[in-house]
């Protein structure tokens, strides 16, 4: 029995093997037998009896991983869908003979600029999430403002309700629900996007906590960060004396406000993989207003 074999290229296999679905590719019987001297052409004989069914041709098989020895017959071909390798069986043994995975393509064209952003086209599409966020139990908070004062003492060295970086929503005595609301350390911080000093200027990510922090050296006091904070009231504040914005920086991971809270309403939640709070492309995330 001979097999038709022309070349060993992938394309040759493909010509013969189309479609590569494991159907019998080679159909029909192979030509066999001897030849004698040519005689005179006789009358056309009556059709002979139908011949016996021929044996199976070579087949294509597919599967995940290398083919098992029990799969197929000699002459069959096998495609490993895991890695694109092609195998052929001969002498009851499968042997890898080719691979149909193409070479790496050329680099694609540059994408369009992100929509809705400010002037900061240099900011990457995402910044690392914060690893911590302040969480307030609003039913437990009784609006004492001890956290605000603890913050101003720890960070500014003075007592001030204006210089604390966590402040009350609602005027305590005239609003039924008055409690504090901290910066949510947004996953997609709009404050960083709109800061004209760029993502490594005034507003940056703290390397230890991931908090979104303001570096006063670079702040120009434009207050765009405050205007674009997605929360109402904003979680960034303006210092009229220094003419700079300021905000919660999680105290490097040991928030002063949490330690001072008398009721335990204020807690510090951390996640080493990042906290999913504030704005996401799909809408407000965990802890949204």
């Amino acid at each position: 029995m001979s097999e038709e074999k022309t070349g060993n290229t992938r394309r040759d296999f493909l010509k013969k093997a189309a479609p590569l679905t494991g159907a019998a590719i080679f159909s029909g019987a192979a030509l066999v037998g001897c030849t004698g001297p040519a005689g005179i052409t006789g009358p056309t004989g009556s059709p002979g009896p139908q011949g016996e069914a021929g044996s199976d041709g070579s087949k294509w098989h597919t599967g995940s991983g290398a083919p098992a020895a029990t799969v197929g017959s000699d002459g069959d071909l096998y495609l490993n869908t895991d890695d694109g390798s092609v195998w052929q069986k001969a002498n009851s043994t499968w042997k890898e003979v080719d691979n149909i995975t193409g070479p790496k393509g050329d680099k694609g064209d540059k994408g369009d600029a992100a929509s809705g952003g400010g002037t900061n086209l240099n900011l990457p599409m995402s910044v690392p999430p914060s690893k911590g966020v302040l969480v307030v139990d609003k039913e437990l908070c009784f609006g004492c403002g001890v956290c605000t004062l603890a913050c101003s003492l720890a960070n500014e060295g003075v007592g001030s309700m204006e210089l604390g970086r966590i402040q009350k929503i609602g005027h305590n005595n005239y609003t039924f629900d008055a409690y504090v609301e901290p910066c949510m350390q947004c996953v997609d911080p709009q404050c960083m996007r709109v800061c004209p000093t760029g993502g490594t200027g005034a507003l940056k990510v703290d390397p230890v906590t991931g908090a979104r922090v303001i570096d006063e050296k670079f702040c120009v006091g434009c207050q765009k960060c405050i205007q674009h904070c997605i929360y109402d009231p904003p979680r960034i504040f303006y210092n009229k004396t220094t003419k700079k914005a300021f905000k919660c920086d999680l105290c490097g991971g040991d928030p002063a406000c949490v330690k001072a809270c008398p009721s335990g309403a204020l807690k510090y939640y951390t996640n080493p993989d990042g906290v999913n709070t504030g704005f996401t492309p799909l809408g407000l995330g965990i802890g949204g207003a």
Partner: protein
Amino acid sequence: MSEMYGYAGKILKVDLTSGQITEIPSSNYLPKHFGGRSLAAKLYWDEVPPEAGALEPENALIFTSGPLAGTGASMTAVSQCAAKAPILYPSQSYHCCSAAGAWGHEMKYAGYDAFIIKGKASKPVYLWINDGKVEIRDAGRLWGRTGTRGARAELQKIHGDKIQVACIGPAGENQVVFSVINVDCSTAYGQGGFGAVMGSKNLKAIAIRGTGSIKSADPAKLIEVNEASRRLIGMRDGEVRVINGKEVVGTVDIDTTDFLRVPDRAEIVERGLGKARMRRSACPACLKGCKTKWEYADGSLPTGSAECGELQMWHGPEQDYYGGLPFGRVSYQWTMTLDDLGLDSNSVGCNNRGYPVKIETVSHGATSQGLDLWREAHRKGILTEENSGLPWSKFGSKEFMEQWLYMVAHRKGFGDIIASGAGPAVKYIMEHEEFGPNRGEMEYMYQKEYPKAGEFGGIPRHTLFHGYGYGQAAPAGSLYTAVGSRRGRKPITYMIDYPMVYVSSLMPFYGDKAAEKFAEFQTKFYGTTKGGDPAYWGEELAKAVIIHENYANECDSAPRCAFSGNNFGAADMSEHMSYSMYCVEEYLSAVLGEDINQERLFLLDERCINLERAIWVRDGYTNGPVDTFFDVIFEETDSTGNRLIPREGFETALNLYWQQRGWKNGVPTRAKLEELGLEDVADQLQALGKLPI
């Protein structure tokens, strides 16, 4: 920002007659005169001549804050108001009263340690103080048209939500003698009738906005003291913790210790009139949160807020009338109406125990309040529905409550008589036949209710007078009331004379060692355990009362809220003692940057108390004894027939007190005044012929 540590640096003086606004450097008075109540006494001494009437332009309305307020120190939301007080009877003199809330902080953030307001505006005005810029503005649309709530809301619309407002309601505008200045939602300068003083000046309100800050010498130390304070007072996770040194030795569920029954977290509760959301509220820098806020979802009552026992002063009468659960609708309406009209709850409220108070046995019952006197008068047929215009047959009802409060605040009909003060009202009744044949009994009843004899009576009696109304002698409380200028000035004297309250609450933690433990505290802070003996009127008692008055002055001057050292949650109070009485020494040291110990503090306290006494002397004290009670008080007995205040024992203790104070017959001597740096005071008293020889 002031360069001084703790202080804001300026005192604001406003003359409403001329419109002149001036600023005085605080360094003229501070730190020598401490702050708060101590500063108020000095400013009054300098500003108000003895002949000035309480409701006349020459009287000065003085507001003071203290060095700890606004620094970030906890439990410091207290400020003082002082002036010649219309409530005192038969003669007017100096009185100083405190209020909680954000007022004291905001003053300092606006740049001021004190306000002095004199004169009288030609038409109704309000003061607008905006970070050091001061204006006198027209109050025409507020005066005669708004209560305190309405005035505050109007001013917030004009000047923003974050302002603090001190204002009067119709009671102050109408110069009701016991009207108040409301400074915060449900807090007020309540005792003295300063609402009337403000009304007499045509001053409707003072609005402040302060965005500044206050410096401390050692902010890191301040943070440490705050942490210690929080461990002692704060109530994390709904528990009051009992701490021994640094170890938590036990916890007590907040509901069993907090007599205010304020829920730990906002929750829906079922009260007498349906479901409401209740939640705790607090002053700035407070660790405790003693206020209650309520919100009825069905809108059946406006959202409101109440402080301390205010809600309790009508729930007894309401239950008497309507039956049913306590703290029903009328109690809430009572507290809101009272606030809005600007009236003092103690003068127009009822006994908070709920049961009817009989004047004859008031020494056995709980304290009585102002209205209890008039109710008793009705029972005796002295006040009728006809001659008083009050629906007595419906006492306790909403109708009665509203009629009573409105007629007093607006001085309508018989309300005009009441509004002139209990003493003058009693005198009026006794002189008019329409009040029937029993009207002569009013004098006795008045003396039981307003026990202080002499020139400067007129303050209602208080719970501490006789061991919280349990009919047990309380020598410290009695002496403290006699010599002090105020009713029930916190801290209360139970730690000296009523140990049972504390020992029993310590028992779950110390077992049979509770009494011994408490005795340690008494010794450490008062130098004696004898105060608990109802028959002891000796030297150690006098000393303990002096120490107690000094602690009280520290609360009023530093300032430091009295709830930080004297909790009704008695289980935790023991450990406050082990740290220091109110952490005042530690806080002042951190803020001022000096070593302030109790000895130095006592010097400041003595200076204030002597100056207050000197004012009374200048105003007429030496016309007769004031550190005493009416005869009927000395006749009160406990249930076994023993005198609650035996005259001989009382006078012994009083003389020992005067001696230890360095006074002669209740008047400071020159030696004492000079020791305290008050030579000028001694000179002035001498010139008036009032200094003891």
